[in-house]
């Protein structure tokens, strides 16, 4: 099985049983790797309607056939489980060095079930696998734990850790790795925490079987040479994702004050240039990446100083925009605290912003929170993050995420709980960006832009890379209302393309941002696996997985359907108050129009459930039969 280590590693933590099985050929043939294997294993093996923190939930770590190969961005691990955030399909993608090391150790996929009897970590050293006590690490920060584990085991181990927030099952707890990378979203860290797993450490000294090693080597070298010629090669690296900050503000898509407004007067204090001028130590990258977008930094604030990788654009948008932290130093410190506690920066900042707005409106009071909390105040943020990570008293509610918290608190607080399906919204204001709005509504894991990023098309009318958008600049004048119809096709195209990289086990940024061509992936895929696949073949697999994850949510979430695809009322009922998009909103009727168009293009019924014929055309007959029983079909 060229391109794959060939082994699935299963660990039943309740029984302490470790088994190595051949990676199933049929699953690989149909779903290739990474996200494809995550989705199929979840469908096949999760006992239906298992609760996310129940020990029968499945935790999957999957690499792809191009993980660990000489190819720009071949670093990725794709994690998945039943979602702690939404109760449906969850996955979360991570860079760094863990995935490649897992393959060198001899494993393509790791599946954990059950729960260890005491806090533990997994030790994987080539063929030798142990479940070891994590007693001395339990309760420690995610960064601290990795540092100490590397001191104990050796720096050649690649390690993922969770922080104290995951131990307390905070619904937006993340996985941390290599002092700056995370699998951030859906509470994937909390699922590990619920299994009493603090860390997974792996060292691998084996070779990945390759079909034609001469060609794989040659094409790999060619691929790097091709990237050096691209304009994005030098344009992307200096600021990484933070380079988006200026442009997003200029087009009025920067969320501020919990998405009340859409432009930050202070954006020059919190952008990529501010990181470079004031914080950055080095550009820190992932395995095999020639364009390291990580900015390893040092920050000093009144609340403390810290080393941290970042902040990324999303963290700037949510902590610097939605929470209104006024300096890059403050944002970086909040970022560090999230990394050490093991919290997703997007969801944590979103919960903080919601809490602050509730306080300002008198919906939550000082007695409940324990102090006053304000936008722009780092001390408020630090207080909230630390309390949430412990789930103490009142903060047990906030640890549930904005959807569950607002459902409980009531008093219309759900109208400004900025989430879809229970996952908090990332850093783009969409009330005048209908394509992007639709992207957030229909992403399978909840409100995330990873599946489709089409803001450029909304603003400029054509798809362009982020790098090109930044280079082109923006007028900053008041934007006209963007037409809402006709967005389905462009969103679906993006939702088909972007996950291909998650399936192959590589980063998408080289293609999306730097103009790296698809031919490289096709050629290297053939040299590595011996299988001739075209980009179109990859798109078909990606499309199939899209239906599969939708079906999984239909199966797992009671009553799942159309009404789970709407944004909160603020984003349809309230026009944007200020900035270049002042006055704009997308009405409920317009949202319905977009959803109808989208479902039709997808071959789903009016309730957003995949139709039998659509599934049968994709060779998913058994899956169609499974959901027929569960679903609320509406013709």
């Amino acid at each position, binding site marked *: 099985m060229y391109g794959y280590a060939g082994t699935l590693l299963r660990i039943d933590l309740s029984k302490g049983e470790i088994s190595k099985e051949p990676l199933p050929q049929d699953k690989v043939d149909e779903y290739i790797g990474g996200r494809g294997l995550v989705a199929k294993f979840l469908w096949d093996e999760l006992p239906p309607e298992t609760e996310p923190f129940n020990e029968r939930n499945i935790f999957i770590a999957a690499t792809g056939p191009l993980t660990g190969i000489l190819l720009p961005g071949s670093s990725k691990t794709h994690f998945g489980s039943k979602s702690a955030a939404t109760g449906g399909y969850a996955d979360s993608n991570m860079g760094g060095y863990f995935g490649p090391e897992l393959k060198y150790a001899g494993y393509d996929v790791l599946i954990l079930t059950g729960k260890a009897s005491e806090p533990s970590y997994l030790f994987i050293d080539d063929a030798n696998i142990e479940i070891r006590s994590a007693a001395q690490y339990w309760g420690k920060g995610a960064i601290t734990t990795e540092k100490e584990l590397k001191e104990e085991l050796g720096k050649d181990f690649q390690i993922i850790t969770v922080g104290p927030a995951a131990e307390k099952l905070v619904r937006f707890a993340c996985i941390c790795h290599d002092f700056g990378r995370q699998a951030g979203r859906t509470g994937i860290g909390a699922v590990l925490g619920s299994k009493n797993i603090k860390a997974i450490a792996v060292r691998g000294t084996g070779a*990945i079987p*390759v079909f034609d090693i001469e060609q794989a080597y040659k094409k790999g070298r060619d691929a*790097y040479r091709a990237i050096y010629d691209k304009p994005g090669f030098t344009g992307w690296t200096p600021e990484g994702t933070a380079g988006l900050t200026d442009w997003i503000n200029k087009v009025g898509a920067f969320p501020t004050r919990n998405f009340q407004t859409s432009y930050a007067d202070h954006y020059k204090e919190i952008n990529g240039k501010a990181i470079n001028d004031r914080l950055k130590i080095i550009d820190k990258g992932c395995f*095999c990446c020639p364009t*390291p977008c990580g900015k390893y930094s040092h920050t000093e604030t009144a609340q403390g100083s810290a080393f941290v990788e970042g902040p990324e654009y999303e963290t700037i948008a949510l902590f610097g925009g939605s929470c209104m932290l006024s300096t890059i130093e403050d944002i970086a410190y909040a970022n560090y605290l999230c990394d050490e506690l093991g919290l997703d920066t997007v969801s944590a900042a979103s919960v903080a912003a919601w809490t602050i707005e509730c306080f300002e409106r008198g919906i939550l009071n000082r007695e409940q929170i324990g102090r006053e909390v304000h936008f722009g105040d780092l001390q408020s943020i630090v207080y909230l993050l630390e309390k949430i990570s412990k789930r103490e008293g009142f903060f047990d509610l906030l640890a549930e995420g904005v959807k569950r918290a607002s459902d409980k608190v009531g008093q219309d607080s759900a109208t400004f709980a900025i989430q879809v399906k229970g996952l908090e919204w990332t850093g783009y204001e969409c009330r005048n960006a209908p394509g992007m709005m639709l992207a957030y509504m229909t992403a399978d894991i909840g409100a995330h832009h990873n599946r489709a990023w089409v803001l450029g098309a909304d603003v400029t009318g054509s798809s362009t890379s982020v790098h090109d958008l930044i280079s082109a600049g923006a007028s900053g004048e008041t934007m006209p209302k963007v037409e809402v119809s006709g967005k389905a096709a462009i969103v679906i195209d993006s939702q088909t393309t972007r996950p291909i990289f998650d399936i192959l086990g590589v980063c998408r940024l080289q293609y999306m941002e730097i103009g790296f061509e698809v031919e490289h992936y096709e050629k290297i895929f053939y040299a590595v696996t011996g299988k001739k696949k075209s980009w179109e073949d990859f798109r078909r697999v990606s499309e199939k997985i899209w239906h599969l994850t939708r079906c999984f949510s239909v199966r797992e979430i009671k009553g799942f359907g159309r009404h789970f695809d709407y944004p909160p009322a603020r984003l349809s009922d309230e026009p944007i108050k200020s900035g270049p998009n002042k006055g704009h909103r997308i009405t409920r009727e317009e949202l319905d129009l977009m959803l109808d168009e989208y479902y039709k293009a997808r071959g789903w019924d009016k309730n957003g459930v995949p139709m039998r014929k659509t599934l049968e055309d994709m060779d998913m007959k058994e899956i169609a039969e499974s959901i027929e029983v569960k679903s609320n079909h509406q013709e």
Partner: protein
Amino acid sequence: MILRGINENCSGCGICRLVCALENFREMNPSKAALQIEGRFPAPGGYVIHVCDQCGVCAEVCPVEAIHLENGAYLIHEDECTGCMLCAEACPNGVMVNHRGSPTPMKCLLCGECAQACPRNALILEPE
């Protein structure tokens, strides 16, 4: 010629190590590389590149004199090597490859492919 690492330019990507293993073993396996990248995190933040600087300690300690200086590089003559691995233990930079019971170790041949492949100008091959 000598191989030199410029630590400030290194982003930790490890392309150099994968290329070294491919060049010398035709294996997709960076653990067989004749150079190491060491991260210093969380503090002070940065990478240290450990390369073979052709110091010759390996040749000195070899009990059968199987390591010879040729065109500026110390090379292991595999037909003379007994596989005792004393050279690998003695290497001050820890960059000799003693991999999983292989009969002979491997060391940097000064081929320069790592420097060619580095996207960050963190490895250079220059006259001494």
